[in-house]
């Protein structure tokens, strides 16, 4: 490329091209992605059942989101990011063992990345017992039901967001959620000696 052409190319980059694009890309990325980081961490942990793996997953998701930000129309950033997160998790899954039900215990870990108990209240013991019962009941659910329940009730996603995170239709989310909650409700209503929730 000759000097004149090179200068023209650089001028184009600065005014309308890659340099200007970088600024708008960085702006769009911060605008759409920064507010969703906490949600991404929550959902990533539900999908991976591990604090460190969740951070790895979110980090990779951020990289992929940045590469794709030019093609993002700015609508529904959470749904867009959850789709990337799900696809990234699927790709990362191929490189490591799948999450197992036994990994559940990490949900209750006091790992550096997650989980600080709130200040104790007078009824802390009762709440603690109810919460332990709930966790036990959820632990016994089929993983598909477990994930939906966690995404909606613990991570507080909407039905549509959970559907994006899992790559299933909204109707499937609602159906799994209904069954999961019914099983948990019945498990908590039964005496513990009567057995599991699923």
């Amino acid at each position, binding site marked *: 490329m000759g000097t004149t052409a090179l200068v023209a190319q650089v001028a184009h980059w600065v005014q309308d091209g890659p*340099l200007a694009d*970088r600024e708008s*890309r*960085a702006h769009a*990325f*911060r605008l759409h*992605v*920064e507010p969703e*980081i*906490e949600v*991404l*961490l*929550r959902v990533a*942990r539900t999908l991976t059942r591990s*604090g460190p793996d969740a*951070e790895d997953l*979110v*980090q990779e998701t*951020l*990289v992929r989101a*940045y590469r794709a930000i030019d093609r993002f129309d700015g609508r529904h950033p959470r749904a867009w990011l959850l789709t990337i997160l799900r696809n990234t998790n699927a790709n990362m899954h191929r490189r490591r063992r799948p999450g197992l039900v036994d990994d559940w215990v990490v*949900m209750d870990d006091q790992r*550096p*990345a*997650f*989980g*600080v*108990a*709130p200040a104790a209240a007078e009824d802390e013991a009762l*709440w603690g017992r*109810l*919460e332990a019962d*709930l*966790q036990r009941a959820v632990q016994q659910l089929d993983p598909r039901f477990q994930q939906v*329940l966690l995404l*909606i*009730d*613990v*991570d*507080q996603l*909407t*039905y*549509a967001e959970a559907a994006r995170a899992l790559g299933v239709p*909204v109707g499937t989310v*609602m159906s799994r*959620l*209904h069954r999961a*909650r019914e099983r*948990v*409700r019945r498990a*908590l*209503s039964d005496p513990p000696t009567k057995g599991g929730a699923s």
Partner: protein
Amino acid sequence: MIGTLRSMWACHWSARRIQRYLDADRGLPLTADEVRRLEQHLAVCERCSAVADEHRVLRLIAGRWASRTVPDQDAVQRMHLVLDRIVAEDRP
């Protein structure tokens, strides 16, 4: 007989909507008419009302669980730093 069938149908109809009623998901809200009909049923049906109450309690416990498992600020901060680095590395 007809009264029993009507009551069973009302319970069935309500059971299919209690979840959406309690979740109040903005993407799939019940219509005002459905809400009114469901609330009327819950007011008179002890069994459905008890089920709804149990689901409310479950939601409370899950909410507490959610607040306890919120990612701490160190993790959030690390991800913000990752984001900063990604943006910075795109600069010439």
